[in-house]
């Protein structure tokens, strides 16, 4: 096995993207993801890739759209306010069936908010990264190693399903260092993209990348076909990790940074004899509804823990569908909950079960 190195989350994402064959990065500076762009700025020129600091997040996402339309793997990264600005472009990408990786290292909002970690863009990522009927793939790593792995997955599935993919993390994961094993380079095989607008060379009809359908019937058909793809993704791509859930009375659901804290709390709870476990969604869209529904048969209650005022909890409720009570505990504004706070919550709920 390759040597473990210490790497910051943001830098690991950049390195992973490069390993995954991405040679086109377009971004605009924003805390707390700056290390990612800085890494790209350092490496891309050396490997014949493009690091381009765009004039804005809007320009950046549309550059990604352009590069992706040309058939290459392209990406951008930003943090919460910047993602709002990208939302029109992301909707266009979805509407044009274009892949592309978007990284959101979330910070506290709304507005300018703060620069500390947060998970309060969950709804934006999973329900409405822009206007109209569409979804994007959303991945929520909780370790830096997993970030690396999910960058590959995000590119691969994005290409496969021809849709944008987002890695949703937060300032804590972006800026912490952990030991990681980097993937070996040059072992990827990229999907063919016969649909790309890269010059027809008189070998085929001309390709059009477009999201305009003036005939509503055609737009409806296009949307329905896209949703059939979404349905297939929901079938096959839900991912989550469970820990101590087999016999759990109380299942904590948490992703990313907060899942790490919750895991500590679960260990502590078990030590006190409380049958708690944790389900950690790895894909936020598709949400791991099936696994939660499964647990709803054995568990007595659920607790969603988020670094927000409560967003994912609705997806947990939708999955559980009233079968068991679903509680919520959250911190917001850049505050990371402590394991002991979560433990308190677990104890209170366990006490009432």
């Amino acid at each position, binding site marked *: 096995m390759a040597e473990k190195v210490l790497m910051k989350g943001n830098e690991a994402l950049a390195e992973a993207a490069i390993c995954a064959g991405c040679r086109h990065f377009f971004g605009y500076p924003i805390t707390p993801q700056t290390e990612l762009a800085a890494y790209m700025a350092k490496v891309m020129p050396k490997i014949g890739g493009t690091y381009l600091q765009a004039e804005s997040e809007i320009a950046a996402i549309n550059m990604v759209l352009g590069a992706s339309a040309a058939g290459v793997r392209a990406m951008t990264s930003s943090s919460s306010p910047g993602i709002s600005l990208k939302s029109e472009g992301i909707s266009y990408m979805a509407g044009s069936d274009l892949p592309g990786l978007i990284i959101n290292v979330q910070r506290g909002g709304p507005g300018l908010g703060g620069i500390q970690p947060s998970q309060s863009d969950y709804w934006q990522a999973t329900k409405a990264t822009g206007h109209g009927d569409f979804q994007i793939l959303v991945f929520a790593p909780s370790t830096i190693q997993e970030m690396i792995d999910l960058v590959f997955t995000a590119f691969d599935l994005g290409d496969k399903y021809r849709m944008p993919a987002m890695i949703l993390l937060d300032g804590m994961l972006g800026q*912490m260092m952990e030991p990681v094993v980097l993937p070996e380079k040059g072992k990827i095989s990229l999907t063919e993209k016969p649909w790309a607008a890269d010059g027809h060379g008189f070998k085929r009809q001309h390709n059009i990348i477009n999201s305009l359908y003036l005939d509503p019937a055609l737009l409806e058909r296009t949307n329905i076909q896209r949703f059939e793809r979404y349905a297939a993704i929901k079938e096959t791509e839900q991912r989550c990790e469970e820990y101590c859930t087999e016999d759990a009375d109380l299942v904590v659901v948490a992703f990313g940074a907060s899942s790490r804290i919750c895991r500590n709390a679960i260990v502590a709870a078990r030590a006190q004899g409380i049958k708690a476990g944790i389900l950690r969604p790895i894909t936020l869209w598709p949400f791991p509804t099936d696994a939660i529904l499964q647990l709803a048969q054995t568990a007595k209650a659920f607790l969603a823990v988020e670094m927000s005022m409560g967003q994912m909890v609705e997806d947990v409720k939708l999955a559980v569908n009233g079968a068991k009570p679903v509680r919520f505990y959250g911190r917001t504004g850049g505050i990371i909950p402590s394991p002991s706070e979560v433990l308190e919550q677990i104890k209170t709920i366990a006490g009432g079960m």
Partner: protein
Amino acid sequence: MRPDLNLLLAGFGGQGLLFGGKVVAYSGLIEGREISWLPSYGPEMRGGTANCSVCISDEPIGSPLVLTPNALIVMNLPSLDKFIDTVVPGGIVIIDSTMISKKVNRSDVSVFYVPATKLCEDNDLKGLANIVLIGKLFKSLAHCSEEALDKAIIKSVPASKKDLIDLNRRALKLGIDFE
């Protein structure tokens, strides 16, 4: 199972706390343990506060944020005031006494006053007070082998600044040797 280290390093931005934390983190990694390193800074580019959480454990690390350290390294007064009460009983506190004249009045923690900045100035090691304090940490806790610590220095210094390795070694030794 070796004891966990939950280290918090705190002071002004620019005092090298993040680098110091990295050295400690690498010392754990080299010994094959689980580790995490997490910086936290205020919004100021200069003159603000900065701190760094480092965890070393034999178990996977949940929260990388050290809220209740068992070791605290502090390099300015506001940070001492802010964090001193968070140290768990039995923990250790290492203070740069050049920067902080205040004394700690907790009896349930071991406190070491090291005039690290002064030591560095006297030894032509300007800017390495952070490493002196880590020398002291190592001396007090022996959280890793001396060899691992040395390798950690080598790993942490960027390839382009190899000449700094020896300076760091000397600073480390100053801290280890300081009584």
